[in-house]
């Protein structure tokens, strides 16, 4: 059954990757990256049990903690760009 879940997860990763490649807006791509991040956490968690080595859950834990930073960095990047394009109303959103 772990195999079935793993299969569902990697197929979904492929679908999310397709969304990331198709775009069309940058927000779609960020959405796809975020989705792939969650899928990776689940994939790693399932595979640890597939391998029968539950002590490797640390990996999934690391991803579940860190994935957030990438999304925040992208948002901050957008905000900085908006501030540069419209000087004056910067930052206060």
């Amino acid at each position, binding site marked *: *059954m*772990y195999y*079935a*879940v793993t*299969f*569902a*997860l990697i*197929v*979904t*990763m492929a*679908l*999310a990757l*397709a*969304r990331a490649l198709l*775009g*069309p*807006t*940058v*927000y*779609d791509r*960020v*959405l*796809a990256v*975020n*989705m792939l991040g*969650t*899928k990776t*956490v*689940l994939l790693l*968690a*399932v595979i640890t*049990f597939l391998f029968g080595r*539950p*002590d490797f*859950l*640390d990996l*999934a*834990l690391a991803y*579940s*903690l860190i*994935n*957030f930073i990438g*999304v*925040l960095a992208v*948002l901050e990047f*957008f*905000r900085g760009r*908006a501030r540069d394009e419209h000087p004056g109303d910067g930052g206060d*959103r």
Partner: protein
Amino acid sequence: MTVFATLLDILSWLLLSVGGLFVFVGGIGALRMPDLYTRMHAASVTDSIAPILIIAGIMLQAGLTLASIKLVAILLFLLLTGPTASNALASAALLAGYRPGNAKPLDEEARQ
């Protein structure tokens, strides 16, 4: 194997397969939906209900071990960060001029 253990097994496999189904459905939705916000709606299924089901399913297999505690932590962090990231993304998109139900941005500048 007692009846109880068998029941637990069946329950865990059930949770896992339903979780896998939700992941798959969410993936299809994220690919096929017409605009950003509906896609986000579909993707949020894989960020909320799917991890709950899948991790609950694995936890039933793991039993009361350190692995279960780690799984709870993983689930907690996923449930904290996933919706937050979606919220931040949606608000950023809204502020950038994308309106729901409108596949195209209001200001047609080359934002991508």
